[in-house]
């Protein structure tokens, strides 16, 4: 859809109806999403799906209350009716209002932004993309113990027009794609999976098809299948308290669950209590709370090139920025919105607010919340300091409590570490702990050459539930005294 002209007229009309109807603030997001999803299983194409969805979401503040309404009908009458519905929704909330909504400063910016890409994923011939997945899964099936080999490709292009009553006019085009492989080996009493490059449908980023080419799925297929077969006959992970070296993808998930979510300020302020929970953090903890070891440095950076959580402007029209979250192990900041920033006395939002679609209310979401690289130049350097431990790679299961304290994770792949060297493979490896003691046990972090931004395209939040596309930069890292082999 053309995001100018008619689209601009509709979005401006929505905002005008809202403000003339009593809104003290209003914005409209007109969004067009194009997507493609390919699934191949055992050399056969299981799914080829393309989709388009276009609609408008209108957000208002009226009488100090928020209201939101959205429609997929993009004609003037429907759009105006939707703006009026947003006003009605806001009015209904006034009977149970606490404090009137206040917003930190916004920008009346006029801007355009597009994801920098080399190769448009939608322009790559469908048969080429399918052929890659077919050949990769067929290669995996050459390992006799592998009975299920699957490959996936996903691409999204979100074109949005943001108009606010404060004068913002932002035209944005975000391209994202990802791909991955998985091999499943099935035994009498065991089922083992091995995924590449990651277990959440592969690796995703705000990039073009160059991300897929760089992943070299076909070149890794045989190894992935062989590792699944190895897991089928591997020993069980023993229960122990030991040193753990996590690969970058698992560090990324650890960051996601035990840092990314608890720092969402709406969670801290209780706004997500009914569903996702709250946080062990409080607003006054900034600058005071020791989150982990001095090697723990975390930044939320929505400008990280190629990362899944990268954009130009968030869904409140605030320019993407970088926010320190943990500095030398001490909490340094939160993920904020205009509303939550105002509530804690900050002058500006951290530009983190995004919605899954035009139909969803924008919420604080992680951007690219990343553990900054450390000093270890190689994985061997991390292993070198370990007499006895466990190396763990690629997430298999994840669980954490509603305040983000007690957690348990499992990985697909694990190898014992003995005297600084990787040893035998063990299966069904799990580890557990509590957030602050765990991060306090961090004693080595991989360096820049080991650092990568890992995309997570399935972060759930909100009621109604919606998905966020986020990322975490991470290198492998080492932790001491960790409980493994949880029973």
């Amino acid at each position, binding site marked *: 859809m053309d995001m100018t002209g008619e689209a601009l007229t509709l979005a401006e009309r929505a905002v005008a109806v809202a403000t003339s109807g009593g809104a003290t603030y209003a914005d409209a997001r007109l969004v067009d999403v194009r997507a493609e999803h390919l699934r191949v299983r055992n050399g056969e194409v299981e799914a080829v799906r393309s989709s388009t969805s276009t609609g408008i979401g209108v957000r208002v503040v009226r009488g100090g209350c928020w209201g939101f309404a959205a429609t997929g009908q993009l004609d003037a009458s429907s759009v105006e009716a939707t703006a009026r519905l947003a006003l009605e929704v806001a009015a209904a909330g006034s009977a149970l209002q606490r404090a009137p909504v206040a917003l930190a400063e916004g920008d009346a910016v006029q801007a355009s932004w597009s994801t920098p890409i080399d190769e448009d994923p939608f322009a790559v011939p469908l048969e080429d993309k399918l052929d890659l997945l077919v050949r990769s899964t067929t290669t995996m099936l050459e390992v006799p113990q592998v009975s299920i080999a699957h490959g996936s490709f996903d691409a999204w292009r979100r074109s949005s027009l943001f108009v606010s009553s404060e004068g913002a006019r932002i035209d944005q085009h975000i391209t994202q794609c990802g791909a991955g492989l998985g091999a499943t080996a099935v035994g009498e009493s065991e089922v083992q999976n091995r995924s590449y490059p990651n277990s959440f449908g592969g690796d995703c980023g705000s990039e073009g098809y160059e991300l897929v080419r760089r992943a070299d799925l076909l070149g890794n297929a045989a190894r992935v299948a062989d590792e699944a077969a190895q897991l089928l006959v591997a020993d069980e992970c023993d229960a122990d308290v030991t040193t753990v070296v996590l690969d970058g993808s698992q560090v990324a998930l650890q960051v996601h669950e035990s840092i990314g979510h608890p720092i969402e300020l709406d969670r801290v302020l209780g706004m997500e*209590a009914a569903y996702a929970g709250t946080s062990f953090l409080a607003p006054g903890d900034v600058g005071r709370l020791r989150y982990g070891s001095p090697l723990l440095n975390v930044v939320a950076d929505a400008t990280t090139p190629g990362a899944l959580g990268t954009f130009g402007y968030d869904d409140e029209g605030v320019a993407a920025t970088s926010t320190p979250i943990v500095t030398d192990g001490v909490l340094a900041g939160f993920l904020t919105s205009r509303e939550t920033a105002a509530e804690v006395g900050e002058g500006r939002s951290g530009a983190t607010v995004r919605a899954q679609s035009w139909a969803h209310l924008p919420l604080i979401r992680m951007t690219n919340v990343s553990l900054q690289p450390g000093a270890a130049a190689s994985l061997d350097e991390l292993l070198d300091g370990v007499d006895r431990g466990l190396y763990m790679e690629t997430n298999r*299961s994840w669980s954490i409590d509603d305040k983000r304290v007690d957690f348990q994770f499992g990985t697909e792949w694990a190898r014992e570490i003995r005297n600084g060297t990787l040893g035998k493979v063990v299966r069904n490896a799990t580890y557990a702990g509590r957030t602050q003691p765990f991060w306090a046990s961090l004693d080595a972090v991989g360096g820049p050459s080991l650092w990568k931004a890992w995309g997570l395209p399935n972060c759930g939040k909100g009621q109604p539930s919606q998905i966020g596309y986020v990322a975490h930069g991470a290198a492998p890292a080492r932790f001491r005294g960790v409980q493994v082999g949880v029973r």
Partner: protein
Amino acid sequence: MTASGPLGEDALAPVVEAALSLGAADDVEVSVSHSWGALTRFAASAIHQHVASEDTTVAVRVVVGGRVGTSSTNDATPRGAEAAAGAALAAARLTPPDPTHAELAGARDLPRVEGRYDEGTAVASPKQRAERVAGLLAALRPGQEGAGAVSTDAEERSYATTVGARHYGLTTRAAASTVIMGGGASGHAEDAAVTLDDVDAADVGVRAAATCAAAVDPGDVEPGDYEVVLLPSAVMTLLEHLTTTFSAKAYAEGRSAFSGRLGEAVASPLVSIADDALGPGALGLPFDGEGTPRTRVELITGGVASAVVHDRTSAAAAGVASTGHGLQAPNPYGPVPSSMVLAPGPHSVDDLVAGIDHGLVVTRFWYARTVNPKKTLVTGMTRDGTFRIDGGIVGPPVRNLRWNVSVLDALASCDGVGSRLRTCSDEWWDTRVPALRLRSFAFSSVTDH
């Protein structure tokens, strides 16, 4: 002004026919879904997020020479449907033949199901939902705050294929859920029904407020193996982690805990689980995402693994009929049980508690994730009200615990089933479950709240 209403089967017909009229295809399937809904969300006892949305999607599957392509759009006009059909055809032509593709649904009568749609719920206003929130929060005790949501959703769906299937259905769903907090404690309750008037939001508030009040000052507890009474919301979590077990696709591939074990005892004889989208208290349409009429499937009968659910693909591979558990194409996940019910027993919750000398009562589980699907090994946390049982009586509250259990092993230890079914939901489906008493449930750690 209130919410939208149904467009009607006749209004959707031109869109359906536009897709079916695609030339150069062997077969076409089209599903047109018009959905509208709203949710009133509250936190700290104030409405803070209040949303409404409406959309119509047209999903088309095209088969040509054994090749399959799908496409969807929310341009719900005949022109949009034609474009989606054309895109699906173009994709199919570039795709290798799919030998697992099963025939599209043909003409079949739907089971007669009454009472799945309520006009009042479909057009419920923001004010009506806000009033329900106020009614829920009226139960708060001094020092308590409430968070939660009241929602009303509606869908009309027209489904058709070029091999004769023609279905139209209307559904509504209303729900209220809350977490009440105060004194360092919390309590949870929920309810869902076809009709907003049948959702007792006030009772949801009363139950959650009472649990919260009882849970103040949670004490220490040691991890270990406990006898437990699980209230319905917790039982729901156990069932939702058996969906792989109950899937014919997983069964055929050896990934299911039922693989090779149909006919074997896998749970206590007191445990019977079925998937029944047609039964009393169920919500949703009487046909699945592939246009197949839904059927009741007995999954575990008196503790014995009885059956798995099928979609058209798994059924064709197995040489049986689909049980009506297919998702809309394309579906790489396989068949899914989405309306499970665990048969009630004779006991009140007090009865169940009375049968335990030292144990725990669990209101709800949280963030449960499968650790090993073949062994139904799952980990998760307790949340919103966990209490000791001492001498057959509910005692002091305790801090939340992490658990690691095999769901089937836990169900094998069941020796008491509650008499009252509650509708409990997560974001994907509704279950109808009673409370259960289990003689063995392993908790591996304790958190700080």
